Structures are given as C-alpha cells and as structure tokens.
C-alpha cells in the first residue's frame, strides 16, 4: 500500500496532442495543440490550469480521461491515473476509467444535460452503469450532494427536467453528477464562466466546499486567475500549448516569475477617466416600460436614462435584469408599451417600422456573438461595404477605399478585405462588426456584451479600440455588460439594473462610491479579486442573495 500512496493520482508525462483542421478551400492541416506538457496531481489536491483560449487547458483536462473533442488526438506521452497508463487500456479500459475514477464538469451545464431526461436519472447514471452502488443508494447520495451544493428542495430537485431549473442550479447539479460516483479526480472545465458574477460566487463556494468535504482531487480549468486562486492549491499557467509557469497559488499570484504570468495578474485593472458633461444628451430614454408578448410581466419598468454625445453609458446587471431588453426597446425591435425616446432632439418612433433611414443609420448595434452576427458566405469587404452602399450609395472603388479606411481604423490593415468570417479570430471578428457599425457614421452604438465572449487580453484590445474610436468619431456608446471590470475601463456614467428597474444611476464616480444600495453592493463585491481568502470573506459579508441562482 505504501507504493500506492506515494504515486500521484494523475501523472501526465510529456503529453503531445494534435488536431486536424479543415480550413475552407485549403488542404487539411495538422496542428499541434499541446507540445510536451507534464503535470501531476496528488490525491485530494486541486490544480488550477489557466490560460487564454487556445492555450490547450481544456484539451489537457480532457486528456486525463483520454478524450479528444472533434479531430483532437493524443499523439505522444503517457497518462497515468492511479498508476495505470490509460492510453494502453483500450476502449473497455477507458469506459472503466470515465465516470468512475475521473469525472467531468463542463462550462455549459445547460447543454451538457440531456433535455429529455430527468436530472436524477442523469446524475446517478454513471454510478449505476459502473455498478458502484444500488439505485436507492445512488439516489440517497445524489440528494445528499444536492443538499451540500445548496440546491433548493434537494429531496425533489432530481425530479425536474434540465429546462426547469436555472443555469446556476444546473452547474451545481453537474457538480453533483460528477461527485456522485465517488471519483478520485474531477475535471472542472470553466464551471462558472457562463454564470453571472453574483451567481458565480455561490457556485464557486459550493464547488469549493464539495471538494473539501469529499476529499476529491480536481483539475480546475479557467481563464480567470482570480477565480482559480480561490479554489486551487497549485496553479499551472499555459500558453499556446506549452507550460509557462507552475507553482503554488500564493507564489503565482503574489510572486509571478514569468512576464506572461505578470501580464495575466495585472490585466483588468484599467481605469478610464470620466469625461466632463457635454451638454445636450444624444439619447433620452423616458420612463420606458416594456414587456414581451405572451409574458404578462414588465421586463422593463419605468426606465429613464440619458447618454451625452461622445460618452459611454454602461448598463450593468445580471442576466434577466432587462439590460438586453432595454437595447431591444431602443432599437425598436421591442416597441415599449409606455414611455418615449428622444434621439438627437427628435422623438423616435417606438416601432421600428415608423423610423426614418436617418434614425436607423445613426443608431447602430454590436453584438456579443460576432460569428453569428455576420453572414458566413460574405467577405469582410462585403460585410463592411453593405452599410456604405445602403446609407451613402457608395459604389466601386470609392466604396473599396472607404472599406480599407475602416479596416485601418480597426487596426486590421490590408489583406483582410477578401477573407471570410471563418478565417478570422474571435477578436478580429468583433473588430469587423465594429467597423460595420462605424461605416454608418452613427451617433450612438449599442454594444451588447461585446467583450464577454473574448479572452481577457483580446477583450482589453477591443475596449481600447472602442475608446480610441470614440475620441476620433465622437460616437456615444450604450455599453451593456455584466462585467464590472469592463465598466470601470470604459464608462462615463453607469446604470445598474435589477429585475427590470434602474436601481442606481449616475456618473461613474458617484455610482461606484459608497454608500451602496444592497444590490450594487452585492454586484461590486461579487467581482472576483485576486487574493487568497477573498471568497470566504465575501460570503461572510453578504447582505442579500443573487436573484439569478
């Protein structure tokens, strides 16, 4: 038994992972995703894997179950779990490993639960398939885990279907599903990234306590250093499939050795100086109340805000607070029931059909998901050229010249005009969307979570670009986000929304200065801070619960 105790639970040696990609119109290419990474996890310890997308952290995490998504395959190295090389066990050996010794919690629990099955059936499935316990034992254990993870009415929670519970609850249920078969190792793959900050904190605490109480070891994958610092014993920083730095959590966040780690530690601490008032607002939203058809609840209640020319109003709140509905009301996609909007001194028709071409041109929008906001069959030049043709009638070389000007403005330069969206990175796609909205020479751009889907460093680039463009073009932004770091970096004024109402509104310096109302306090205190013990402190000092968990 001494032998067993000495061996690490997970021992990955010189792991190499490749994938075959099929770029449009070219020959298939083989890319190396992970270049010889080694790591070990001891029993009962938590190792955090951190890096930007493309760093290979999820790929490495899944390799501990010998699993590769799509065309991803392990081409070199050894992976030992409990002293056994799992790459040599065959299909049967892998089935014995997965769901029994190693389990997995994904980023999107909402997509990872089968919509056609009750939660309980899915949570206990692995325990039953591997013959680890009887059905009644498994159900009793699941109920115990539901209770431990703070799920409402744990006795009956499992009777529900996935669509009947919230995102935060699903994420906890997935954690329960991973812990139910009493595994030795759980791979957490960005388990709180898709959640609101206020919900994230609860789920994070639940996961942390569950790990502590069950004594399970874990690989915790995330791009958010502040989050991983709360749960892991050690942290490994990865970039482009290579190890950058590996050390204790304390060492990584307080005494980083590598430049890249230092960049990660210092990111998101930007502060944008508030601009002085510029007189007449470009948009006045006056007492707008709106609801969706078929749902007899006001999604927006008496919302009044103003934006001055060349300024940024940040609208913050958790999902379901009505932020995006406000954008839909302003753009005319959801005509308000009551209230009015004054744009550039003229009254905007509530209904989209009643707006002039000028109204449409001066009010543009950028979306969270750049990939789905562009026609995949059109080139960048066509996408950006469309508003130039539609609003200004530009054609031929004149149009091409203007497209190139816009591309220069978004710092993408030559060679991009003929590309298709699929050939661009996430940040580049968002830049093209920005150029498309700028092409209309708008007075106001509504930015709906435009940096939420991007890595921190890429998001920072987009925010800086937006600030530069605002200086040059004097365009105003209505910036919808749930991320307070982003708000600090870009806003001049802030509206905090909660359950369809604006609960706090004013200049940035006023909104972010105490005394706070309870909700703003919750929101501000929920933003992960990069120091040890932060999570416990916040939980101990909370005044109210999040609405969305």
């Amino acid at each position, binding site marked *: 038994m001494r032998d067993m105790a000495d061996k690490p639970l997970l021992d990955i040696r010189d792991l190499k992972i490749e994938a075959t990609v099929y770029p449009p119109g070219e020959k298939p290419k083989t890319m190396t995703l992970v270049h010889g990474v080694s790591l070990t996890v001891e029993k009962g310890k938590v190792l955090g894997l951190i890096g930007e997308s493309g760093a290979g952290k999820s790929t490495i995490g899944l390799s501990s179950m010998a*699993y590769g998504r799509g065309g991803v395959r392990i081409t070199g190295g050894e992976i030992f779990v409990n002293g056994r090389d799992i790459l040599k066990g065959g299909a049967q050996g892998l089935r014995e490993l997965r769901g029994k010794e190693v389990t*997995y919690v994904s980023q999107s629990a909402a997509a990872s639960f089968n*919509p056609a099955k009750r939660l309980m059936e899915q949570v206990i499935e692995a325990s039953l398939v591997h013959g680890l316990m009887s059905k009644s034992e498994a159900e009793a254990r699941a109920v115990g885990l539901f209770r431990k993870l703070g799920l409402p009415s744990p006795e009956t929670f499992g009777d529900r279907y996935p669509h009947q519970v919230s995102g935060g609850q699903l994420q906890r249920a997935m954690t329960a599903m991973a812990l139910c078969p009493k595994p030795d190792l759980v791979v957490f793959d960005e388990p709180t990234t898709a959640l609101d900050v206020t919900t994230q904190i609860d789920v994070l605490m639940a996961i942390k306590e569950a790990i502590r109480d069950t004594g399970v070891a874990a690989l915790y994958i995330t791009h958010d250093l502040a989050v991983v610092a709360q749960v892991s014993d050690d942290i490994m920083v990865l970039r482009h499939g290579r190890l950058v730095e590996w050390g204790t959590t304390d060492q990584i966040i307080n005494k980083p050795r590598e430049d890249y780690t230092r960049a990660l530690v210092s990111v998101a601490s930007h502060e944008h100086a508030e601009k002085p008032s510029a007189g007449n607002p470009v948009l006045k939203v006056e007492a707008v109340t709106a609801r969706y058809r078929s749902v007899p609840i006001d999604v927006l209640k008496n919302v009044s805000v103003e934006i001055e020319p060349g300024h940024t109003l940040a609208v913050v709140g958790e999902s379901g607070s009505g932020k995006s509905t406000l954008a839909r009301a302003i753009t005319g996609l959801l005509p308000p029931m009551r209230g009015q909007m004054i744009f550039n001194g003229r009254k905007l028709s509530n209904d989209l059909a009643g707006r002039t071409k000028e109204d449409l041109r001066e009010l543009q929008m950028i979306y969270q998901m750049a990939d789905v906001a562009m026609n995949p069959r059109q080139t960048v030049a066509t996408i950006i050229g469309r508003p130039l043709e539609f609003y200004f009638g530009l054609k031929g070389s004149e149009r091409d010249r203007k497209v190139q000007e816009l591309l220069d403005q978004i710092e993408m330069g030559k060679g991009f005009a003929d590309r298709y969206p699929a050939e661009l990175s996430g940040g580049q796609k968002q830049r093209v969307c920005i150029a498309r909205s700028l092409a209309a020479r708008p007075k106001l751009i509504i930015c709906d979570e435009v940096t939420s889907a991007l890595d921190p460093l890429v998001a920072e680039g987009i925010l800086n670009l937006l600030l530069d463009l605002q200086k040059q073009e004097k365009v105003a932004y209505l910036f919808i986000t749930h991320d307070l770091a982003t708000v600090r970096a870009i806003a001049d004024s802030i509206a905090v929304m909660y359950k369809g109402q604006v609960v706090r509104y004013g200049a940035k310096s006023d909104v972010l200065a105490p005394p706070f109302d309870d909700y703003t306090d919750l929101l501000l205190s929920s933003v992960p801070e990069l120091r040890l013990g932060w999570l416990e402190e916040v939980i101990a000092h909370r005044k109210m619960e999040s609405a969305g968990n």
Partner: protein
Amino acid sequence: MHPVVKLIAQRLSLGLLLLLAVSVLIFVGTEMLPGDVAQAILGQSATETALRNLREEMGLNQPAITRYFQWLGGILQGDLGTALSNKKDIATEIGARLGNTLFLAFWAAAISVPLAIGLGLLAVRYRNRWPDKLISGVTLATISLPEFVAGYILMYLLTVKFRIFSPISTIYDSMSFAQKLNAIALPVMVLVLVVLAHMMRMTRAAILNVMQSAYIETAELKGLRPLTIIARHAFPNAIAPVVNVVMLNLAYLVVGVVVVEVVFVYPGMGQYLVDHVTKRDVPVVQACGLIFAAVYIGLNIFADVISILANPRLRHPK
C-alpha cells in the same frame, strides 16, 4: 389548461379545417370535369329530354353549393352515395376495401418501422464503417427499384423458383388469419423494401445531428457503451423528425399502394379507385379522394402530436 392540451386541440382543429378545405377542392375539381353524372350514365347518345329528366331526378339541376352541402351532409352521416357503375352503396364497398388496405399497411408498417429504426441506430453506431455503408447501399438500391420490378422479381424468386408463396394475394373473408398473412407476404415484402430506406436514412441523419450535442459528450465521459449512448441519450431527442418521416411513409402505405395492389391482385382501396376512375364513376372517386386526404391529414396530425409529446419543454413547462 395544460399547454400541451391546448396545442393538441389547436392541431386537431386545424386538421379538421384542412379536411373541410380538401372536401371543397375535391368537389370543385370533379365539378370542373366535362360532362356530369347524368351524361356519364346515359352515354354520348342520350337525348336532351332524357338527360334533363335524369338530372331532375338526381337533383343535378340544383346549384353547386346546395349539392356540395348535401354531399358533405351525407358524408358526415356515413353516406358516401351510390356508385354509378354498379349501383352499389359506396360506404359498404369501401368499408371492405379499406379494411384490406389497412391490413396490408399495418403489417408492412409493423415490420418496416422497427427495422428501419433499428438499422438507423446500427448505421450510427458503425458510422462510415462497413455496416453503415452496407445498410445505406442496400436500402438505397431497394428504393431505387420501381415497386413493380421489385414485385415481379420477388414473385419470380419466391413463387416460381422456390414455391413458397402464392403469386396472387387476393384475400377473402373466409380465409383464416394465417392464410391471410401467407397471402399478403409478398406485397408486404415489396412495401417494406420501398419505405425502408427513407425512414432508415432519416433516423440516421436525425440521430447523427443529435450526436453533435454536448450531452452526448457527457454520456461518453460517463463511460457508457456507444449503443447505450445512441439508444438512451440520442434517440429520445431525435424522435420528432423520425416520427414525421415514419408518418409520411405510413400515409404512403395507405394511399400509394396502387401499383403493388395491381401487381399482386390485392383487393384494396387503390385498385378500387383506379377501376372507378376508368369508369368515370365520379361519386366513388370523390369518396376515395376524401378518405385518402383524411388518412394523410390524420397521420400527419398524429406525428405532430407525438412530436409535441416528445418535447419535455412542452410536456413539463416551468
């Protein structure tokens, strides 16, 4: 009211409305044919007086709209009218024929539906490997073969070469159940071959589509066997598209089997319809058309209802 009940009630009333519209179309269509029933009965050489008398007697000189409602009213009371060619009551005639058609369709469906879904599941399990290619290849070959060719080939093999079945599939009331089954074996085989490929390929495509989902990955990471994943996690989410194709094929088994019935001399609806079209027996054609439309609409509504019931979001609202 439970939203599912409301949805189903909506579908049912839509179906009835559609059926009413079809009845109008059928009536108008036959109305537009040159000549009328009186002409058809008396033939080309009939005198004007004779025609007028007969029209009077049959109520044909009344406006079309009155006759439509008389016709519709009769149908609602189960009276489909009288056949012109043999003066028999259409309802009783069709009753027996429809029974035969449904008997044939039922057995063809009972074999082809489970077979198609099973083969679809297997094709997904061995995707792009030889079992998948074999299943796709064979079913595509059988669907490409016209029914009468398949029918005659089977007939040659199984009745001439090896004397297993009878080439004539006519069934009578006096036959025992086993005798009837034996008689329809050949047409059932042909029908199975015809409808198999469509359902199998749709099952395969629908499940493959679901196999891309994140919850399939979850199932794989639980260490489940591939066939368990397909049957337990993928198939329940592919029911809606599969059911739609199955119902289309079932409808075909009821309304589209004319050729097979003729080839095997089977006394079903198709043959009955074709016989009376050649005789210009308008009331029979109208009645058959309406019944076929009802079967088609009914099966499609049934498919809709199953799709609704298969959706947990509708079955268990928040």
